């Protein structure tokens, strides 16, 4: 099986979306050919030949973070390029299956639901085969606990969802998820919120800022300028 994966995160290799792809690669195992494409790298250095290579793959996986309840704008541009290119190449003719793996920094995987719908409409609009997706809440944990065992502890629910995608990809060339899977890591809402707060504060301290600086309202000064 030849599998293409688009890392739709503008953060590139240092992203939770890339970590989801790595987890998927582990869940699928050896014996398959992979093509990993970074959309942000393509944004900076567009190369249409990579689009042709993606279109020859049996399955396409798009992993991305949810920005303002949808796909990041830069990923939309890349997918638009792929749709235009694949209309002229083999992906549509061959009924390429598209899977999506969305993640968001909020707790609930439900925040990814609309983005998965958008991916489905994308496939419908350009003739690709929508094969389902997963929406992962608590996305900020993906890289934080990446060294832990995938099939136990807090990673277990997310790994199960990724494994479902893996199974559908390799089962046969027509297999797809029965329905989208929305999930999050095995932690409580309040523990995740507290961990998030600690993380922001630590990053701010690193940048020489204090806790109260986080609440700054710099744009209020513009009201005076306007009047």
């Amino acid at each position, binding site marked *: 099986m030849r599998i293409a994966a688009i890392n739709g995160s503008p953060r590139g290799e240092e992203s939770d979306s890339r970590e989801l792809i790595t987890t998927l690669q582990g869940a699928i195992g050896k014996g398959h050919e992979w093509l990993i494409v970074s959309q942000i790298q393509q944004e900076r250095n567009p190369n249409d030949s990579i689009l042709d290579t993606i279109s020859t793959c049996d399955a396409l996986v798009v992993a991305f973070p949810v920005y303002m309840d*949808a796909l990041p*704008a830069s990923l*939309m541009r890349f997918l638009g390029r792929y749709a235009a290119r694949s209309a002229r190449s083999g992906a549509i003719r061959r009924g390429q299956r598209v899977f999506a793996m969305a993640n968001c920094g909020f707790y609930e995987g439900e925040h990814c639901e609309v983005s998965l719908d*958008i991916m489905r409409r994308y496939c419908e609009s350009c003739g690709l085969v929508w094969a389902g997706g997963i929406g992962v809440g608590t996305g900020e944990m993906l890289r934080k606990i990446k060294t832990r065992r995938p099939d136990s502890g807090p990673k277990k629910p997310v790994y199960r969802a990724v494994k479902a995608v893996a199974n559908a990809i390799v089962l046969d060339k027509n297999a797809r998820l029965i329905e989208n899977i929305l999930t999050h890591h095995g932690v409580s809402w309040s523990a995740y919120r507290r961990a998030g707060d600690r993380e922001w504060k630590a990053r701010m301290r690193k940048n020489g800022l204090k806790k109260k600086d986080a*609440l700054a309202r710099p744009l209020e000064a*513009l009201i005076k300028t306007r009047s």
Partner: protein
Amino acid sequence: MLLYDSGDDDARVLHSTLRAVANKAGEAYSFDVSRELPAACVGCFGCWTKTPGLCVLPRDGGTVYAEKSWDADYIVTVSRILWGAFSMPIKAYTDRLLPTMLPGFKRINGMMRHRPRYGRIPILLACGYGASSTAEEKTFCDFARAQRDQGGVSRESGSFVVPRGASAQALCGDCAKWLGKELAK
């Protein structure tokens, strides 16, 4: 605040109709995305952890949009529907509103959301056109509602869609009535 793309005929027609309604309701301002395509948000969170409240990307249209829209009561986005979401140029602008949020979380309508930096966020209304299917129209309404949920305003009526195949020109009257009702709530 009305966000629209003057390079699109349907957007121009709908915008001028909506602008007239907004003018009657109060002080209205339009932001035309066709002037410039801003840099896409890269999710670096620098607007939270390096320069709180300000985007760290070089100043461009996205910066200006955040400056002009943060204290609006309403943002009315007029957009061609692409895969059930906003068009790419419009989305590039809306992604750049992250500095107007705080990194901390709170529960809004049972779901985790970010706290607004300025006490509240504008009510986000959406007017879409040019969908290629009724499924896209439904996804657009779901998407627009999810965005409104950020501010805790779950108005089902907050979206207006020009149905597939219908003319934007012909539906201007309905569109004006819709916005009039929304602004009166």
